[in-house]
């Protein structure tokens, strides 16, 4: 969370995260290149770079796409989400190295523009085994490029979270293109089934994780609240909500987080203004509701970010009757102060 734009808002966690990424990537590349040289000492430098960066980029893409659903299924994975952008930019950089060397090695020796050569040299669109797989990879690279250059809060604010999120959902299309780039490319010329098995296992894992988390979310969204009284809906018992934590309820298609803080209950809209993170899955830190995704903060009594920040979320009325929590799903304007409901022992 920052009051002004900086290239990277460094803090200890981000530095640790980035050192881990750098350490892992370096180790992978060194290991891959060393093993390749042991088993095929004739291999050229360009080929080594093309292969090592491509396999690492595909691996990182799987990790990146798994982080979201893993966090939905288990909060222990949330630290991975915190700096996912840097992981994404790293993956793009590796893809760019792979793409650049591929274009240079396969298309730069002719008298046609290398990009034009890539897109026009093979037009066998009606053949699977001879399909122009390089064009698929190139298109995925363009998507990764657009995502990488907009992976900053400056673009998030200027494009609006809705447009930004929509743009970044193209990563799913890019993933499909990458899978087919591999399957219709190198796999067509390798007989070892291990490559197919790895790609299939990766895709199956991702699909399963996303479907499981999606089904879990749908259950929360579809929960019915039968008891209603003067606009209030009975949601749970007081003891169901831990101190400094929240429970999330979906009423009238909106998710509301009911937080327990200093012996009171407060209700705010569950969606963080930054990237739509689930505020109800965070906790109260320094007297503020703290989004579990990137640490954006809001005061529980009025849904406002503490000065100098200006983000605001809607607040809701909540009351306690006989240790039962009742919630009014009619939202107050964003940033409206609400008294909260006092918990009497």
């Amino acid at each position, binding site marked *: 969370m920052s009051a002004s734009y900086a290239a990277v808002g460094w803090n200890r966690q981000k530095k640790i995260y980035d050192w881990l990424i750098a350490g892992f990537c370096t180790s992978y590349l060194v290991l891959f290149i060393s093993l390749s040289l042991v*088993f*095929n*000492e*004739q*291999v*050229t430098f*360009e*080929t080594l770079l093309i292969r090592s960066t491509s396999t690492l980029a595909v691996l990182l893409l799987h990790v990146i796409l798994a982080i979201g659903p893993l966090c939905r299924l288990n909060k222990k994975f949330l630290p991975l989400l915190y700096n996912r952008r840097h992981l994404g930019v790293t993956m793009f950089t590796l893809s760019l190295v792979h793409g650049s060397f591929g274009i240079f*090695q*396969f*298309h730069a*020796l002719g008298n046609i523009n290398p990009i034009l*050569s890539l897109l026009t*040299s*093979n037009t*066998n669109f009606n*053949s*699977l*085994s*001879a399909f122009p797989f*390089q064009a698929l990879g190139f298109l995925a690279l363009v998507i990764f490029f657009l995502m990488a250059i907009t992976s900053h809060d400056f673009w998030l604010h200027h494009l609006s979270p809705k447009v930004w*999120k929509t743009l970044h*959902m193209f990563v*799913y299309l890019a*993933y*499909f293109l990458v*899978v*087919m780039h591999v*399957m*219709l490319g190198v*796999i*067509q*010329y*390798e*007989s*070892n089934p291990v490559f*197919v098995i790895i*790609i*299939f296992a990766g*895709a*199956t894992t991702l*699909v399963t994780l*996303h*479907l499981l988390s*999606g*089904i879990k*979310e*749908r259950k929360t*969204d579809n929960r019915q609240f039968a008891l209603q009284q003067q606009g209030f809906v009975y949601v749970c018992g007081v003891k169901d909500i831990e101190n400094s934590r929240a429970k999330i309820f*979906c009423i009238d*298609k*909106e*998710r509301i987080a009911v937080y327990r803080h200093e012996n009171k209950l407060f209700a705010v809209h569950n*969606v963080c203004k930054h990237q*739509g*993170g*689930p505020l109800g899955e965070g906790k109260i830190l320094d007297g503020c509701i703290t989004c579990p995704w990137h640490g954006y903060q809001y005061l529980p009594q009025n849904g406002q970010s503490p000065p100098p920040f200006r983000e605001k979320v809607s607040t809701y009325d909540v009351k306690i009757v006989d240790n039962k929590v009742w919630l009014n799903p009619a939202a107050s304007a964003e940033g409206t102060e609400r008294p909260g409901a006092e918990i009497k022992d």
Partner: protein
Amino acid sequence: MMRPLRKRHLQVWTAWAVLIPAGIVFAWLAIPDMVPVKLLQAPAAGLLPVIKKTSDKKDYTINLRTDPGNTQWQLEWKNKSVLMVPSAVIYKASPNPSGGGALESFRPENAILVGRIEARGDYVFSLQQDSTGYNQLHFILYDFIHQKAIEYINF
């Protein structure tokens, strides 16, 4: 996350749950027939002892190897200098018709994939048993990136 966005995520991954495995399986089934060996391989210790035929080109030498009983066959490819194509495949094909235009008319789907080579190095590939008895063999060096036959090699 907003409810519509959650819904869109689930829709996309439901579609991918069908399309991605289908894409993988179809692409796998489309892999051309090839000998059951790793295509990219260094010269093996088990080179067959008899060189039956040799074709010596400017940039590479190709040996057709066999054992004394002519029961096994190998294609040995030795690059003498760095090739202009960084990676190419070798196909076993039907005879090269005399006259021009043969390279242009080559279609990989009508040939048998033997193996893949790179710009440098020596390679050896096992050859499947053939009814012709290896009296007449025709190989094609093929640039799979540009989908273009580079050269015919006739034994």
